[in-house]
């Protein structure tokens, strides 16, 4: 029967080629626009650490005074102060924990042909490598002693080694960064989760990667500063050790629900003790432990423009669907005569309904094909934008499947009402009127 309905649908669509074309075009444009923007949203909000994200947590403390005159800058409580980060680090309540911040240093290559360039990297404590699962190509992370002792050592990424030395076997070599010499003790394969969930909100999240990692103590001892957001509300805004300057990120790995509950309690107690000591003004209940995805959600990493574009695309799709419902309604109802004859010849209402639904699905399938072409064009145009997320805008298999399914489902749904109305035509009345 299905083949017969498909054939009927094809004939019906061929009888009104212009109208069919317009319906297919409308659904195609609607699907194309929404798929383009949904793909962009999808890649921007994807899980950067699949399989691991459930164990990674970001403690949140709010040391900011209750009444603070805030300008246009980012929320200062999004980062930690040095004393708080050190307290969490030394408490060792997680499987792994690391305090970190980004910095940019001028690298002076040893080879004469290269100009100096600026490299972005991270000052961190040693657990970062194990916690985030970075893979060492050569060498290893620094030791706990080097972590505390401000050793002039650095772990570099494979592409950084390639750029500066022309090879990756560079353990033991010396690289000059920010006017200081560092001994390379390890090389990691390039690591760039998207979004870069662990960086400060003011850094790029969809482009670039850390080219080097050095002990946090070293960065502090050499006064290398940070390139992230540094917010202060006391008198010593330039002192990174200050309890009134926030600039550090902190991540902890917790492997069991019990460990998570324990850490929550620990964080609350810590905030309460700081409040009791008069350092925090906010209630201890503002302390919070965010999961990785929850943390990304809190930071609203999708720009307003992208959200608005997605909204526009969906509204456009909605209007296209309204349009198709109206057109299908008119189209199917006009075929009352045909329906009456089929009913008189023995077809029941269900058959009529299925027949028209097959026709709607066929329109949806054609529309979906047009939509895929439109979405590819749309994504191509997104990739031409200079935004940092642009290069990620590519259709993947799940999105492709979603586009086709959405298109067919949407048009079948759009056809339900018209098909039902057409199926409920009373054959006797119609046949009599002919």
């Amino acid at each position, binding site marked *: 029967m299905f083949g017969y309905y498909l054939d009927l649908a094809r004939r019906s669509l061929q009888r009104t080629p212009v109208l069919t074309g317009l319906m297919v075009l409308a659904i195609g444009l609607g699907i194309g626009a929404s798929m383009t923007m949904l793909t962009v949203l999808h890649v921007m909000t994807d899980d950067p650490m699949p399989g691991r994200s459930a164990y990674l947590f970001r403690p949140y403390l709010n040391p900011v005074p209750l009444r603070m005159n805030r300008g246009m800058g980012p929320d200062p409580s999004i980062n930690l102060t040095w004393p708080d980060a050190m307290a969490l680090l030394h408490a060792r309540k997680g499987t792994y924990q690391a305090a970190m911040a980004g910095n940019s240093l001028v690298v002076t290559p040893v080879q004469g042909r290269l*100009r100096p*360039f600026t490299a972005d990297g991270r000052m961190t404590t040693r657990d970062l490598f194990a916690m985030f699962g970075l893979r060492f190509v050569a060498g290893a992370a620094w030791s706990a002693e080097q972590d505390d002792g401000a050793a002039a050592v650095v772990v570099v990424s494979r592409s950084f080694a390639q750029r500066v030395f022309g090879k990756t076997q560079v353990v033991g070599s010396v690289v000059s960064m920010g006017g200081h010499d560092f001994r390379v003790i390890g090389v990691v394969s390039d690591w760039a989760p998207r979004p870069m969930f662990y960086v400060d909100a003011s850094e790029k999240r969809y482009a670039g990667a850390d080219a080097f990692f050095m002990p946090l103590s070293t960065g502090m001892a050499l006064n290398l500063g940070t390139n992230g957001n540094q917010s202060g509300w006391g008198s010593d805004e330039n002192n990174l050790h200050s309890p009134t300057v926030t600039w550090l990120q902190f991540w902890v790995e917790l492997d069991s629900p019990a460990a998570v509950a324990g850490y929550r309690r620990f964080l609350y107690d810590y905030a309460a003790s700081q409040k009791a000591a008069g350092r925090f003004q906010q209630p201890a209940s503002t302390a919070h432990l965010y999961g990785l995805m929850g943390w990304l959600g809190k930071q609203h990493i999708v720009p307003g423009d992208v959200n608005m574009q997605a909204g526009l695309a969906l*509204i456009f799709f909605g*209007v296209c669907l*309204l349009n198709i419902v*109206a057109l299908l*309604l*008119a189209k199917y109802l006009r075929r009352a005569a045909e329906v009456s004859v089929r009913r008189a010849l023995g077809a029941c209402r269900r058959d009529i309904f299925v027949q028209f639904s097959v026709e709607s699905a066929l329109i949806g399938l054609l529309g979906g094909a047009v939509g895929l072409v439109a979405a590819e064009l749309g994504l191509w145009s997104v990739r031409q934008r200079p935004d940092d997320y642009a290069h990620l805008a590519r259709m993947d298999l799940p999105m492709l499947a979603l586009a086709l399914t959405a298109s067919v489902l949407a048009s079948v749904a759009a056809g339900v009402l018209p098909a039902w109305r057409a199926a409920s035509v009373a054959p006797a009345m119609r046949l009599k009127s002919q």
Partner: protein
Amino acid sequence: MRVPPMIAALGRHRLTCWLLVLQAAVTCAVVCNAAFMVTQRVQRVNEPSGLRESGLSIMSLSLAKLHDDQLAQYLGDVDALRRIPGVQAAALVDGVPYLGGESSGTTCGSLDAVRRMLAARADVPGCAEPVLYSGGRQVLQALGLTLVAGRDFRDGDYVHGKAGYQMGDASSVIVSQSLARRLYPEGNAVGQMVYFGAGLSKGQGQRIVGVVEHLQRGILGKAIDDDQAVLVPSEPADASVLFALRSAARDQRRVLAAAAALLDERHPDRLQDPNFGRPYAQVRAAYFQRDRTMIGLLIASALGLLFVTALGIAGLANFWVQQRTRSIGIRRAIGATRGDILRYFQAENFLIVGVGIVLGMLLALALNLWLMQQYELTRLPWPYLPVGALLLWLLGQGAVLAPALRAAAVPPVVATRTI
């Protein structure tokens, strides 16, 4: 023509009509808001920088580390740049509008205001938060700023900046007109003192010697503050500086290439930077890239919606004409003219779209309220609503015209045929 029978006729297609009404309403709401957002973004993109942008090039120089006498080297650079044939002016500056970075600082117009500001730790009248630019010799000519009061800097005004220094050694400044108005509402800014930076705490001011028409910030923020700037006659000597070059527009490419070669030769240790030297037009284009994308997308969505809606109206009208061929024939046979039939279809469309528009206006206001909450948009000015309504009505009339004409062409003899 009487309306009630028409409504009765429409009642036979109640569902289809309501779908069309809904479609027109959503389209109307989105088109009104999109038009408003486009206007706002276009205004933003065309915001004057205050500079004479044509013929202006910006070279940004970043060094791995500072030389012992960096400023002397920079001044040598500027001299050499001025000798390039075609260069009309060249100046050392630390920032330009729309470059995406800026240094700003609280600035007060009187010591009294300084005291009040320090006591309140908040905004007080007589103080503002302008952007602070520092620039060396020829800065006004190179940037193409327009003086509206006072005078240009003189040779004796310029002071030598030090690396990482606080602006404030200079004794004179030029301010933008809007800052002059903010600090001195009576309009006598030239000759008055302003206090900023280290001068705030020391109570040591700089004299305003001139006022320029406009000078925009490095980053746009709140509209009321965007045009507030102080220009200090101080030659910056940091590891990162800018050179502003002015030439005739037709010489720009050649001048830029020559300047890039010259700076490369004089600073072999400069950092790798793809945006090392470019026409100012590119600086502006890069800054407003997102706005232009959004303008394009808003226009495309509005046009797409209008197109789909017109398509729906035309498609349905087409069906209705086919469906009613017999009744049209009867009407023609009993005396209706072609004009009557045409008018009938157009009035019908007018009615449907009209209901859609009324709903659409309400929807447009609701959408605007939501956008105001989500994206800090301002209130939709009312003229957008009638214009949007008119547009949709015209669209409806246009879309229904072809089917209506076809209906009007139905000969009365059809009435006697069976279908």
